C-alpha cells in the first residue's frame, strides 16, 4: 500500500511538470497547426537563463527566476513567433515542422558550446523536507510542483474560457478566418498564444530542474514525453494536456514497478497508438472541427 502510494504520488508530481510542457504543444498546435519539435528544448533552456543569472551576474535566485521568465517570454515567445513562425506560416506547416527541428538543434548545441556539456545542479525552490503519509515519503517539493502546475493550468483554462481575450484566442484557434470577420485581432491573439507558451516553458523548466538537473540534452526526453502526453490527453484541449501529463507520469512509474523496467518507456507509446486508433481526439479532447 505504501509502495503503491509512493509510486502514485511521485508519478503525479513528475506528471504535473510534463503537463506544463504538454500544454505548450497544445497551444502551438492550435495557433499554427504545427508540432513544435523544439518544445523539449524550450523547457530545457530557461533553467540556463536562471543559472546564468545566479552564476554570472550573482543575482538572488528569485530575481534570476523572474528575469528568466521574462527572457523566456521574449525569446521563446515573441522572437520565436516573429522570426521563425511568422515568415513560414504562409507556406503551410511542413517547413515550420522542419524549422522547429532545426531550432531545437540550435538551442541544444548553443547551450553545450556556450555554457557546458555537463549537467548542472539547480537550486531547489521549495524546502526539501520529507514527510511520511501512510509509509510513503512525500517531499514538500513534490506537493508544491503538483500544486503550482495545477494552478497554472487551471488558471489558463479559466482565462481562455471566461475572459474576453481568452475567448477570442479560442475563436482564433478554431477558425481564424471567421474570427477575423467577427472582429478579432487574429495576429494579436496568436501572439498571446506564443507568449503563454514561453511563460509555461519557463515555469516547467524551473520546477523540473531541481530534481531533473539542467543539461543541454534534457529536451530530447522531455519533448517526447510532452508530445505523448498532449496526444493521449487530447491535442486540442488544455485540460487534455493536464490529464495526459499526469497519466504518463503515473503510468511510467507503474510500468517500471509492476510490468517491466526495460519496457517502461514502451507503455506510454503503446497507449498513444491505442488512443489514436480508438479515440483519436484524445481522452478528454473534442473532435476536431477543421478538415485538414
Amino acid at each position, binding site marked *: 500500500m505504501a509502495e503503491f502510494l509512493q509510486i502514485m504520488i511521485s508519478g503525479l508530481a513528475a506528471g504535473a511538470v510534463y503537463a506544463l510542457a504538454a500544454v505548450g504543444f497544445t497551444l502551438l498546435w492550435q495557433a499554427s497547426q504545427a508540432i513544435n519539435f523544439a518544445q523539449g528544448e524550450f523547457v530545457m533552456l530557461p533553467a540556463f537563463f536562471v543559472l546564468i543569472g545566479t552564476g554570472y551576474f550573482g543575482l538572488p535566485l528569485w530575481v534570476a527566476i523572474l528575469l528568466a521568465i521574462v527572457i523566456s517570454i521574449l525569446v521563446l515567445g515573441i522572437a520565436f513567433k516573429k522570426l521563425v513562425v511568422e515568415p513560414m506560416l504562409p507556406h503551410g506547416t511542413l517547413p515550420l515542422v522542419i524549422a522547429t527541428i532545426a531550432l531545437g538543434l540550435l538551442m541544444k548545441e548553443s547551450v553545450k558550446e556556450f555554457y557546458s556539456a555537463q549537467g548542472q545542479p539547480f537550486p531547489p525552490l521549495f524546502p526539501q523536507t520529507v514527510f511520511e503519509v501512510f509509509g510513503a515519503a512525500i517531499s514538500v517539493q513534490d506537493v508544491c510542483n503538483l500544486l503550482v502546475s495545477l494552478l497554472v493550468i487551471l488558471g489558463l483554462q479559466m482565462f481562455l474560457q471566461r475572459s474576453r481575450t481568452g475567448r477570442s484566442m479560442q475563436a482564433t484557434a478554431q477558425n481564424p478566418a471567421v474570427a477575423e470577420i467577427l472582429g478579432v485581432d487574429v495576429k494579436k491573439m496568436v501572439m498571446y498564444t506564443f507568449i503563454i507558451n514561453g511563460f509555461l516553458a519557463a515555469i516547467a523548466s524551473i520546477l523540473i530542474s531541481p530534481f531533473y538537473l539542467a543539461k543541454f540534452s534534457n529536451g530530447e526526453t522531455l519533448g517526447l514525453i510532452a508530445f505523448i502526453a498532449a496526444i493521449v490527453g487530447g491535442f486540442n484541449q488544455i485540460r487534455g494536456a493536464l490529464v495526459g501529463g499526469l497519466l504518463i507520469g503515473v503510468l511510467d512509474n507503474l510500468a517500471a514497478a509492476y510490468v517491466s523496467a526495460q519496457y517502461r518507456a514502451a507503455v506510454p507509446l503503446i497507449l498513444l497508438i491505442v488512443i*489514436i486508433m480508438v479515440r483519436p481526439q484524445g481522452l478528454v479532447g473534442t473532435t476536431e472541427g477543421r478538415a485538414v
Partner: protein
Amino acid sequence: MSWLRIAAVLAAIVVLVLAPMGQTTYFVYVLCSWLVFSIAAMGLNLTLGYAGQVSLAQAAFMGIGAYVTSLMTLAGIHWIFAVFASVTSCFAVGLILGYPALRVQHHFLAFVTLAFNALVFLVLRNEEWLTGGSFGLVGMPRPEFLGFKTGTQTQFYYFVLVCFLIATGIMAWIIHSPWGRAFKALRENPIRANSLGLNTRRMTLLAFAIGSAFGGLAGAIQAPLVQFIEPGSFALIHSLKLLLMVVVGGSGFFLGPILGAAIVVLLPELLRFTEGYYLMVYALMVLVLMVFSPTGLFGLGTRFWQRLTRPKQVERGDLKQGASL
C-alpha cells in the same frame, strides 16, 4: 523522355562511376553513405513529397532492414535473399502500420510512426537474444556476386552504386506510371482528384508502404557497409535527420532527397572551418532556408530558373494542403 534528359542521366552515371577514382578510402566511404541515405530519403520523399504524409519512422525501417539482413547474412544466407526479406518485411510492416493510422485521420500517421520508431528502438535494445541488445551485431560479411567481390571500399562502392541505380530506376518508373501521375494530380488538387474517383486513402497507404520498403533496402545495404549495427543508429533522431534531408533538398522533387542526403552527409566536411560550431551553423542554415524557400534547395533553384525563363510561377498545391501536418 527527351534526348536531353537521357544525356543528362548518362552523364550523371558516368560521374558516379568515376567519382571514387583516386580518392581516399574515407571519401569513398562517405560516398557510399550518401548513396545509402539517398535511397532511404527517396523512399521518404514518396511518402512525404508525393503522398503528403509525414512519416517519422524511416530510420526504424532502415533498422528493420539492417537487422533482418544482418541476422540472415550472419547465419550464412546470401545477401540477395536477405535484401529480399528486408524489403518485403518493411513493406508489410508499412501496410500494417499505415492502414489503421490513415483510416483515423489525415495527419495521424506522423504520430503513429513516431511512437513506432521509439518502440522499435526499445525492442532492438531489449531483445538481446535476437538483436545483440545495446552491444549490437558486428562483422556482417560483404556480399560476393558470381566471383565479383565487394570487400574493399571501392568495390563496395560499385555494389552500392548498382543498388542505388536500380532503386532510382524503380522510383522513376513508379512516379511516371499512371499511378504516380495520379499522385501528382492528388497533390496539385486533392478535391478534384477525389472527385475523379481516385481512392486517395489506398494510394496514400501504398505510397507509405513502398517508401518504407525503400528504407528497408537502405538498411540492407548499410549493414554490410558499416559491418556493425546497434539500436542507437535507428533511433527517432535519425528519422528526423532523414526528414531534414528530404525537405532541405526539396520534397516532391525527384532529385531533392539525393541533394538533401549529400548535404547532410557531407556537412561536417563542408563546415569544417567552423570547427565545433558546425551543427549550430547547420541548424541556422536550415532555419534560414525554410524562411526563404520552404520548398528546399530544389525549390529555390526552380524558382530562380522560372524567374529567368517565365515571368510567373505556378503555386504548388501540396505545401498548402497535402503536406499539412
